[in-house]
């Protein structure tokens, strides 16, 4: 069977044109966690009991089906309301999100109890429910839809464009929005050389961390001899704090599949794998469903678009090993081995899965491919910078007002991201403060830290490399002044130490050493020698490790040592943690000038470390104190410091 895209698209378009309104409920992981599926169920109930027509699945006219909603379609002459689920809309923190089209209203934090009111006020009376609209915390302005929300306004959603709008489980909607046309073009109008050339010209660089030009990688694989080649989609996304790939797989799985098909055409592969990490069950389910639907409709399988070429996709779940994101380890894992990296060369392009030429690309890279081939490389190059064209998704987390999934052109400044999209830096209670910014950690465990002096640095592959950081997979963690940079370095070191596969002595033992050295510093046992040894070990691990995990493991240490040396030195020489996070270095004291002798602290202290008479300054006995901070919390006169 050969897919007739135009027919599928026009049938879907016809069915949709009968719909008057559309209610889109975010069913990404974040919103589901916040109860969006209950909201969805409540909508069905409320719309039906209000006597309105509802469709949950669009059927082409005359199509057979046991769906109760398609009968409803015929039951009444009034135009029905379509209810659909989408993938992550990016603003997870404000979820569950409900969008109503064509008005473009976005409701935030919707609870099942709110649904009846939405149905009455918006669907029947055509008015917005004001209390459910987003209110900008800075200006206090109420925003009707994404067009008015600063978080969305400043973004440039390209790869994520359809993510959060289309129903990821309906292939026809993807096709209706122009999906699979790029693949069709690649298979019927282009030769493999042409596809590679177009990719090369687009300048698309791999989004998995390394930033290697995708066209070059494909071309290297294309020229390898042999009839059997593979395409692998790397959906391992092991970086803590990153969830871009997850959102794409969940929100627009067909774009990844289409990208793989085009890659297969470019290199001459007939089989592919999607390797998804097992912590992402929803992504696994959506990708599996997408593969099955694409096969059923005739897009994927034998004789694609009548070209005589076939392509088959397998889906494999990882088993919880970060190092399996490294390409040679990933290949070993698909082959049923322990996921240990191998020395390169040979590169996967030469000898990959089962010894055959293999292309491995990241999820976001693959999802960008249909955009390049569909719209042309020249248009793709319009955004981003000369050497880093296009847009990049980032997971914006940590101490910012708006956390979530964002997409901006390469070259956007950090200041724009943190202050305009992120809405500013927050304190530990979640309030935006003017001068709270300390650093942004970018690129996860392989990345580095950026500071105030980098706020106007354009975010792109080369600028970041220049300052010892990297784009990595795109995790951006904003940190406020109450964050201890030594602890952050330790946090990443603990992660890589746990995840080291153990093959290289320097990676295995070096990370352990660095962890111990950082512990010494945080416990107040650091000396000048500790800092020196730490730096030397870091350099050695960088040089002597086989794979990227070991080679980049020292980056968080080296970059914090570079930009926050004073903080390390305060720990070592003054036995003081400037951010007040390292417990061993805390020395709670009561300022006699501020203390009014209200006795609150003494009452609250769990170990009886505080003594003093009523209305006279109190004192803390440092030998008893366990540094719990309770005294500081209750003191209304801010007399307790050092916790």
């Amino acid at each position: 069977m050969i897919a007739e895209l135009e027919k599928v698209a026009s049938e879907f378009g016809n069915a949709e044109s009968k719909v008057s309104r559309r209610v889109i409920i975010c069913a990404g992981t974040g919103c589901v966690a916040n109860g969006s599926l209950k909201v969805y169920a409540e909508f069905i109930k409320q719309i039906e009991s209000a006597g309105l027509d509802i469709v949950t699945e669009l059927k082409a006219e005359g199509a057979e089906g046991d769906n109760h909603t398609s009968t409803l379609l015929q039951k009444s002459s009034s135009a029905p309301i379509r209810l659909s689920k989408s993938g992550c809309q990016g603003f997870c923190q404000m979820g569950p999100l409900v969008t109503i089209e064509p008005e473009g209203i976005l409701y935030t934090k919707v609870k099942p109890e709110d649904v009846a009111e939405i149905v009455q006020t918006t669907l029947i009376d055509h008015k917005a429910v004001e209390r459910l609209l987003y209110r900008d915390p800075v200006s206090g302005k109420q925003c009707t839809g994404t067009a008015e929300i600063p978080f969305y306004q400043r973004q440039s959603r390209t790869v994520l464009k359809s993510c959060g709008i289309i129903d990821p489980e309906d292939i026809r909607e993807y096709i209706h929005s122009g999906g699979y046309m790029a693949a069709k073009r690649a298979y019927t109008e282009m030769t493999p050389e042409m596809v590679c050339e177009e990719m090369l010209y687009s300048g698309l660089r791999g989004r998995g961390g390394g930033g290697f030009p995708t066209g070059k990688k494909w071309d290297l694989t294309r020229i390898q001899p042999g009839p059997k080649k593979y395409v692998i989609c790397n959906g391992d996304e092991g970086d803590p704090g990153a969830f871009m790939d997850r959102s794409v797989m969940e929100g627009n799985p067909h774009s990844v599949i289409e990208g793989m098909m085009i890659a297969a055409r470019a290199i001459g592969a007939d089989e592919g794998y999607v390797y998804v990490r097992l912590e992402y069950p929803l992504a696994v389910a959506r990708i599996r469903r997408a593969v099955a639907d694409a096969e059923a409709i005739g897009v994927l399988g034998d004789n694609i678009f009548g070209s005589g070429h076939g392509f088959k996709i397998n889906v494999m779940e990882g088993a919880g090993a970060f190092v399996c994101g490294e390409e040679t380890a990933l290949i070993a894992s698909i082959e049923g081995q322990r996921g240990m990296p191998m020395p390169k060369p040979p590169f996967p392009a030469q000898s990959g899965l089962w010894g055959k030429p293999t292309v491995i690309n990241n999820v976001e890279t693959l999802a960008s491919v249909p955009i390049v081939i569909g719209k042309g490389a020249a248009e793709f190059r319009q955004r981003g910078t000369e050497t880093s064209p296009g847009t990049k998704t980032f997971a914006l987390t940590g101490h910012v007002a708006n956390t979530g999934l964002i997409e901006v052109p390469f070259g956007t400044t950090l200041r724009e991201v943190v202050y305009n999209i992120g809405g500013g830096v927050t304190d530990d209670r979640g309030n935006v403060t003017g001068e709270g910014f300390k650093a942004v950690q970018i690129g996860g465990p392989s990345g580095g830290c950026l500071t105030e002096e980098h706020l106007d640095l354009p975010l792109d592959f080369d600028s970041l490399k220049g300052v010892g950081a990297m784009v990595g997979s795109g995790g951006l963690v904003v940190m406020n002044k109450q964050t201890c940079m030594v602890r952050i370095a330790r946090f990443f070191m603990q992660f890589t130490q746990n995840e080291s596969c153990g093959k290289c002595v320097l990676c295995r033992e070096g990370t352990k050493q660095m962890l111990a050295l950082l512990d010494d510093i945080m416990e107040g046992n650091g000396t000048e020698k500790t800092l020196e040894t730490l730096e030397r070990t870091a350099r050695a691990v960088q040089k002597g490790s086989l794979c990227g995990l070991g080679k980049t493991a020292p980056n968080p240490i080296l970059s914090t040592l570079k930009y926050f040396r004073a903080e390390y030195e305060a720990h070592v020489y003054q036995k003081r943690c400037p951010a007040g996070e390292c417990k061993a270095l805390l020395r709670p004291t009561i300022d006699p000038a501020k203390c009014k002798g209200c006795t609150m602290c003494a009452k609250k202290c769990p170990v009886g470390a505080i003594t003093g008479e009523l209305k006279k300054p109190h004192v803390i006995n440092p030998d008893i104190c366990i540094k719990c901070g309770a005294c500081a919390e209750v003191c209304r006169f801010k007399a307790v410091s050092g916790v």
Partner: protein
Amino acid sequence: MPQTLEKTTKKLRQFNKVCEILDRYERNPAKLIPILQLVQDEYRYLPEEVLTYIATSLSLPPAKVYGVATFYAHFALEPKGKYVIRLCDGTACHVKKSIPILEALRERLGLTDKVRTTPDMLFTVETVSCLGACGLAPVMVINDDVHGQMTPEHAVALIDEIAAKEGKK
């Protein structure tokens, strides 16, 4: 030691299911990881006899099967509790203070870094390095249910709720 009849039939039934899974993958050694995943879904962990059995069926050295099973974090060689609580300690969750939640959970259940399952086999507490719901940090998952914006108090309340439902105090 002589086995009771009951034990033997239980074992047989156990291997039946394993056989089915092995057959589904045509006893292909390259499918070792998906096979172990399905077997673990079935038994909630990978008992030693089962690992040996899988090795023989796939004509692989037992050391290799054991090697794979120990390499990946997902595979458990010891049984886990009925409720597996996975607390995220990824970057986003960590900076939003996930550790105090872990400490509160361990304290409530009498668990430590080494002892992760309660003696009554009801709860297992583990950390994971990112659940991909960082926007809701800190995040905790109980079996498959994701809970966001956790606090130590809320986490303990969830445990208490489950314990009450299970008739434990």
